[in-house]
């Protein structure tokens, strides 16, 4: 295996898409969750994946993470097939799926992000602790490092999970409902953090139900309901007709002074 410097690596991946999905079909047993899905995400994008429950959002994430083998089609991360790209991708789960009463500190949780690099039996050392500290500083949670995770607020919980995802220095971040349930200030902080990360060349792909936030803040939107309903900038894709088709019901779509508000009808 050849060792390339970060500079060479970045030069090599500068031209390729962060995520290239071509003709992807995937599912569980006999049930298809995704059918013939294709789209291409440029590096540094802020992409929202939008769709009703059961639309295939988590299936898509599982395929990108290499946890589910596609039936058909291909998925490439920065030009590499998924099985060679595990270290380039990190995942942040839904806050509701994490056990916040578990007896660990914020730092313990963030350290877990480095385990995929370490492999079995090896203990985390100085480099890993340093990476965890940097990640905590990025999400502005360094002063909370020694706290129990149960003491965190909703916004801090999400930032802690984001820091864990950042510890492995990923190029592509998959975030599951990173904004749901946050108040306006916390949501604004989160979006600012996203912009900072994408400006570093990282690509953020977030599954979210907060459609108004997508319309206002995201650069790209993927409207998904087993197949791709629309893909492109929110201004072009988050339209009344496309949203109705995606969610299979009437969505309330309001444009107030150029700001779009979308409510489930």
């Amino acid at each position, binding site marked *: 295996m050849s060792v390339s410097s970060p500079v060479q690596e970045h030069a090599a991946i500068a031209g390729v898409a962060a995520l290239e999905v071509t003709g992807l079909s995937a599912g569980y047993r006999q049930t298809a969750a995704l059918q013939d899905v294709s789209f291409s995400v440029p590096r540094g994008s802020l992409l929202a994946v939008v769709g009703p429950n059961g639309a295939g959002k988590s299936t898509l994430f599982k395929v990108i993470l290499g*946890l589910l083998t596609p039936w058909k089609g291909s998925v490439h991360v920065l030009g590499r097939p998924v099985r060679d790209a*595990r270290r380039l991708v990190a995942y942040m789960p839904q806050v509701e799926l994490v056990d916040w009463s578990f*007896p*660990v500190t914020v730092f313990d949780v963030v350290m*877990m992000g480095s385990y*995929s690099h370490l*492999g*079995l*039996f090896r203990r985390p050392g100085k480099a890993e602790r340093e990476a965890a500290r940097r990640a905590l500083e990025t999400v502005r949670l360094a002063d909370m490092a020694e706290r*129990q995770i149960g003491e965190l607020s909703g916004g801090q919980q999400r930032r802690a999970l984001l820091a864990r995802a950042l510890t492995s220095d990923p190029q592509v971040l998959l975030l599951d409902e990173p904004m749901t349930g946050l108040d306006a200030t916390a949501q604004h902080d989160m979006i600012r953090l996203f912009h900072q990360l994408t400006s570093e060349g990282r690509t953020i792909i977030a599954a979210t139900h907060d459609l108004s936030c997508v319309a206002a803040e995201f650069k790209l939107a993927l409207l998904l309901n087993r197949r791709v309903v629309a893909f492109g900038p929110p201004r072009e894709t988050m339209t009344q007709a496309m949203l109705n088709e995606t969610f299979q019901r009437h969505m309330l779509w309001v444009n107030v002074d150029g700001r779009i508000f979308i409510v489930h009808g």
Partner: protein
Amino acid sequence: MGDTLAFLFNPLLEPLAFPFMQRGLLAVALVGVVCAVIGTFVVMKGLAFVGDALAHCAFTGAATAFLLGGNVYLGAATTGVLSAVAITWVGRSARVSLDTAIGIIFAGVFALGLLIMSRVRNYTVDLFAFVFGNVLGVGPDDLIAIAVMVVVVLLFVLLLYKELLFTAYDPTMAAASGVPVVLLQYLLMVVLGLTTIVTLRSVGVVMAVAMLVTPAATASLLVHRFHHIMLVAVAVALVCTVTGLYLSFYLAVASGAAIVLVTTLAFLLALAFSPRRGLLTRGRPGAA
């Protein structure tokens, strides 16, 4: 001076003149350590029912071995470990919750044990000791078995600590990070099964679960990081098992029951006086 020391230490040293007490103390201390370590995972994952179920499943193996004239503990280990694997497998593949899987396997295997027992006409000391525990009957062979188990469990937890912690805390993320979550879950259950079986010898089927759960639960009231809980649980287990055995010696009561009662008392004390969550200390000025 010498008399004072003798007065203080004789009650502690006297019982050690008996080889069965030496072996018994060593056995309960080792069992306490191994149960506290595995018990921390059991308590933090809410698997207490699993320990109970495995102890009962082990009983079936013991009864079978007894009827066939084989080694009772080998029989117990076989059904204990097989049941542990079966519970994990049913829980994973039958799309039922782990609780339900435990209920199904546990009831099925235990019923088989009772069926076999009903064919045994005269219970001997062996099987009686298995149900109620008899730490003072621990022989050199039992001690070796327990010591091997301690080494296996401690190595398992030390070498795979970060993976076990990650899997216990967040199995989905652990799997996404390349941790062999399924294998670890099976291994943890097998180790839990083996732990339960060495515990049976000292406290018996019914009270094995207390050794597994109570020290870790006590520790979780006092400290709040996973490895701290594990270390405090070990300390609690050591103190309680040794105290319990001395009490049973002087009061001439059943050793397993004495050990479990002392451990329960430790839990109640922690519940009352825990610095952060104590029923009596909570909300008082000065209580941090």
